[in-house]
């Protein structure tokens, strides 16, 4: 099994730290950076997807009901979606930890 970053030793790198497997950026938990998290009033959501277009992380997708929602593993909590949403669905709350 592939080692996590914390398990890797200096002998484990490819030449020049080249990453030979795709998807290393997807595996990186940028959600750790967040100090605020998005919350939703989905009753106002018109499923326009503007939030997904503006999301710099590209982490917003339709959920099972077709409402657009951020994946919190990657969401950095920047709040741009709040600013862009035309119907005011999204608001931010402080992260507890």
């Amino acid at each position, binding site marked *: 099994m592939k080692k996590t*970053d914390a398990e890797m030793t200096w002998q484990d790198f490819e030449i*020049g*730290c*080249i990453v030979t497997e795709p998807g*290393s950026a997807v595996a990186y938990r940028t959600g750790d950076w967040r100090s605020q998290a998005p919350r939703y009033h989905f009753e106002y959501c018109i499923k326009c997807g503007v939030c997904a277009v503006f999301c710099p992380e590209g982490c917003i997708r339709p959920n099972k009901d077709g409402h657009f929602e951020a994946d919190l593993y990657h969401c950095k909590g920047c709040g741009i979606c709040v600013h862009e949403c035309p119907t005011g669905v999204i608001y931010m709350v402080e992260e507890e930890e």
Partner: protein
Amino acid sequence: MGKKIGIEVSMAISEAAKLADVDVVAAYPITPQTHIVEELARMVADGDLDAEYIPVESEHSAMSACLGSSAAGARTFTATAGQGLELMHEVLYVASAMRLPIVMAVANRALSAPLNVWGDQSDMMAVRDTGWIQMICENGQEALDSTLIAFRVAEHPEVLLPVMVHCDGFYLTHVVEPIEMLEKANVTKFLPPFKYPLPLDADKPVTMGAFAPPVIYSETRKAQEVNLRKSKAIITQVWDEFHKVFGRKYRAVEKYKMDGAKTALLTLGSFGETAMTAVDNLQAAGQNVGLLKLRLWRPFPFEELKAAVKGVENLIVVDRCLSTGGPGGPAYSEIRSALYGEPNQPRIFGYIGGLGGRDVMVSEFENIIRQVETKVKTGAAQEFELFGVRG
């Protein structure tokens, strides 16, 4: 044996790049490097060399273009000097950490201000910690040979590191010297085709230059450190291979008339030629002096230096660079550090001169040795000083 011809050293360096059949040259002209890249541009334009010549808008771009071309698996050459090397500075670290075997000739030059385009080793010393292999040349023959050797070392599967070939600006680059050229058949024997193990390839995608968070950055640095240190054994091995094919032998620390020498000068680069004459003169006068020449600056040849100074009582390191406000010339302070705590460590004296193209004469090397003898007799402190300064 190759034909011996009179040739400007810059042209000889270009010739070495041509013999190595480089694929890409990305360079920006700057004094005193200009003739090297001008000649390569001519070769490409005239169809003498089948390579891509990228005329970039700055040295920062030159080295950036070299990164890309080397990563794609192309044999890549560039050259620069002084301010140009400084403008490249941040990209130099990227080349070494990404293990891209770029070869670069540096026509060593002073750094501004005041503006000075002449020979000096301040540029070399400012890029000391960039992770490149750094070789220093003393004469034109070495400049030609070392440029070819640099490709073999850089591309060695166990090395894969960029190499700088340092040649004193003007003192080397602009003089015409009798140089034994390298025969193409021998070059082909010595330098196999370049094959980068993990090149940029659309069919087999890789990520190069990804970021490393704190949890992993120290491990990447350790890997780089071990790799650069290990390269010394391979550099020596390549020098041996070169000796076998071309008959000229190189070592990390060269000795000149060191048999039984109690006092030794240590120089880097073209100073060595003048210092040899000083040693000849003093030996003829019955003095017990010799000369050591440092050819390899990174990786630093600790063991070779320690072996070379065995029996030496007074070591005089002559730098062509001042570490302003610091412990003296960079070579002097590094050598003091390398020999610290060694049994029978010699007294070590530092002299800094020849800055910004100031000529240093044979008589000045002789004077330095006399001064040191006086200092030893009077028990003066082992310090460094700038010599040849008025006032």
